[in-house]
């Protein structure tokens, strides 16, 4: 009876211990876990590159790496963090949770879902082997004339991630539209599902533009076309238009799922239903729409006419409004809630706080005259790191802690979690506030050596970076050890169901119905 034997075996060995299961699974929770494993690996790799850069920047002389290697470090770091950490980690959450939240058995196209995942390792390998040195923004004409084959690999790597995320997004939209169980509709659908729906639409509209821009770049490099070089009438600014038409929506591709997941876990942690459900849902849509009209705020200093730029300034400032609406609703949810000081709550709070700081620095840069001074300085670097690490990554951390007992049926260590929280937050302010100051003082970004008078601030920043690094290692050790040895967790670890807000709404409704029927 080999069949029953293999059945029994299947229940006892977890799926991730069999290479065959890993390679053949199309189940959404398992694909979700693969996304987590993948993205956390690249958080570490990208983080190591960051520490390497900070080590170089601890002293004014360029004495750790050479200039070209430094260029590659920030290029690969940036591309990894955006495309191989922050994007896939939320795809992982979406995979695991969206079907459960809407009561679906799986995604609509399970095999395509697996394909979206399996494209990523190839893209990551291409990026690392290519070791490009042109910045994650890949500005022309440098990218056209730089003969290194690594640039071609960078282009093709982005093509592959782009394909992967378009396939994934089509899948999520169809799933959310079609596989909602009865009783879940657009007026009560979990906010995380809302954010994934909007994000998926942004992806299918923005990524093709990047794909087109990258294709032109590949042709310019290899077939002598003249899209981005002025001799034949082309224009390097065209690349910036195409890149940022994708690039600004890309930052919302990252931040909307983070906001969505915070809107799920915050009310459950403080035992109080979310305040302003509709406002949060609609502001998600509004951010998605407005996000397509702001790309030229990355191009204020390119010499475009001021009349063309002014609307972008206004639109950019307008995006702050729906973002503010969300913040106010989260705060209103906190007000009168029971705040428990466990690790996910702490990270949720630091997400909100850091998002405010990072968002306000963004509004400063949106002013054209201000940006003339800040463009290409460390201020910009400080701004987007506050958002990308301080807000988005910390939202991913909060959600990882929150759902850990669901993923592994075990509990993590609270003490280590709090150590991680303290080091991440002390570390990030030591790291990014000096960056803002350096930028105001005129320190340009993407330099591996600098004037001696900047050393004090740089040294503080390096110290902060090391703190973050230590905290992240503690975090991952905590997860790995607790996964093996942690105490068993209850099926309702945060009393969410007890408070009438089950973690996975659709699944809970399905269970209730199944019980009623027998």
């Amino acid at each position, binding site marked *: 009876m080999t*069949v029953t034997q293999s059945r029994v075996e299947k229940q006892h060995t977890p799926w991730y211990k069999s290479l065959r299961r890993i*390679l*053949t699974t*199309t*189940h959404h929770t398992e694909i979700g876990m693969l996304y987590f494993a993948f993205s956390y690996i690249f958080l570490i790799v990208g983080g190591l590159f960051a520490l390497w850069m900070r080590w170089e920047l601890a002293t004014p002389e360029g004495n750790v790496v050479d200039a070209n290697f430094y260029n590659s470090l920030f290029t690969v770091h940036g591309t990894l963090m955006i495309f191989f950490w922050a994007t896939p980690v939320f795809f992982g959450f979406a995979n695991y949770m969206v079907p459960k939240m809407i*009561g*679906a*058995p799986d995604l609509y196209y*399970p*095999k*395509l*879902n*697996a394909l979206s*995942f*399996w*494209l*990523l*390792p*190839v893209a990551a390998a*291409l990026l690392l082997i290519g070791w490009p040195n042109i910045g994650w923004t890949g500005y022309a004409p440098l990218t056209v004339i730089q003969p290194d*084959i690594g640039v*071609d*690999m960078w282009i*093709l790597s982005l093509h*592959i991630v782009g394909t992967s995320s*378009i396939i994934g997004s*089509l899948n999520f*939209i*169809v799933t959310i*539209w*079609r*596989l909602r*169980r*009865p009783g879940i509709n657009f007026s009560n659908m979990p906010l995380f599902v809302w954010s994934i729906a909007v994000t998926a639409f942004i992806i*299918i*509209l923005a990524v*093709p*533009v990047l*794909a*087109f821009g990258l*294709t*032109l770049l*590949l*042709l310019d490099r*290899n*077939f*002598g*076309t*003249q*899209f981005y070089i002025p001799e*034949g*009438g*082309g*224009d390097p600014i*065209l690349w910036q*238009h*195409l890149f940022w*038409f994708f690039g600004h929506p890309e930052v919302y591709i990252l931040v909307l799922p983070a906001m969505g997941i915070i809107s799920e876990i915050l009310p459950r942690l403080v035992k109080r239903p979310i305040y302003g459900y509709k406002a949060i849902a609609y502001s998600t849509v509004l951010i998605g729409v407005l996000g397509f009209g702001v790309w030229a705020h990355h191009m204020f200093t390119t010499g475009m006419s001021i009349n063309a730029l002014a609307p972008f300034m206004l639109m950019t400032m307008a995006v702050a409004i729906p973002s503010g609406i969300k913040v106010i609703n989260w705060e209103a949810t906190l007000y009168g809630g029971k705040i428990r000081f466990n690790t996910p709550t702490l990270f949720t709070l630091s997400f909100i706080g850091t998002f405010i700081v990072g968002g306000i620095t963004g509004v400063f840069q949106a002013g054209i005259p201000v940006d003339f001074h800040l463009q290409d300085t460390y201020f910009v670097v400080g701004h987007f790191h506050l958002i990308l690490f301080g807000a988005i990554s910390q939202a991913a951390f909060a959600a990882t802690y929150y759902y850990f007992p669901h993923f592994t049926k075990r509990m993590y260590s609270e003490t280590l979690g709090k150590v991680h929280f303290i080091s991440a937050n002390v570390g990030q302010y030591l790291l990014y506030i000096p960056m803002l100051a350096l930028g105001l003082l005129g320190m340009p970004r993407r330099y591996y050596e600098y004037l001696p008078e900047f050393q004090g601030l740089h040294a503080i920043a390096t110290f902060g970076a090391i703190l973050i690094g230590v905290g992240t290692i503690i975090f991952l050790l905590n997860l790995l050890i607790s996964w093996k040895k942690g105490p068993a967790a209850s099926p309702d670890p945060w009393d969410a169901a007890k408070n009438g807000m089950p973690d996975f709404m659709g699944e809970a409704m*399905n269970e209730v*119905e199944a019980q009623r029927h027998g």
Partner: protein
Amino acid sequence: MSAETNAHAAHEEHEEGSIWPAIVGLNTIALIAGLILLLKGIYTTVGLILVFYFIALLVVFVVFEVRQWQHVISSFFERLQKTPIPAEPEKVGSVGFPTALFLLTETAFFASAFGAYFLIRSTFPVWPPPGAPHLENFIPRIQTIILLTSSVTIELAVWSAKKGNNRGVLAGILATMVLGIVFMGLKLGIEWPRLIYELGFTPASGFYGSSFYILTGVHGAHVVGGIIVLAIAAGRAKLGHFKPKSHGFLDAVSLYWNFVDLIWLMLFLIIWEGAFLW
């Protein structure tokens, strides 16, 4: 193993998933490696082999998939029946919505292509730039007629499917494929060689040349893609997959084909007929 356990094992296999996504996904490295070799002109034979290896893999995968398509669909509905989600084919199975979404990404792609084209074109004092060769519009006119006809033939295939006339379906699909191939033959066999070798008008002939070849090139690539999905549709028609009430794939292919046709009309008007000249 008896036939019964065999079928059982096949069922198990399906519940457990499929190795194909991993195979296709991970093997894109071969495609990319091949492309890079071809782009750089080193070891071009190896490059060609790698690219063809990937294409062959895709073909095997698609053939495999097509043969069990029916089974995949029915097990999808079986799975839904165990949930409270209404498993009505019209509600959850129709192909219109996914196709529309896909065409939305295609629209974004072509919108960026046209946007980039007009953005740069508007910086030229005169268009076409002085010294550029005159683009003969004889072949494009024939191509326009061909594509318009092909939109009719693909609709004939859909119409025959609704009537349950399987031979009509196959005939419609094959006619569309032939028209698509003739279209590509005119472009790659006559028009482009003439421009390149007789007039010296190449992708490297300034932005005018670059934009001409990219716009017609990405459109041509979409026609080739269309021919491939038409071939898949033909295969499914031969297997008798299309029923009067269920021929979603065919509907999707026809939508796509008409979309590509529409893009051609815009290209034709803009590039050869001087639309939007100022």
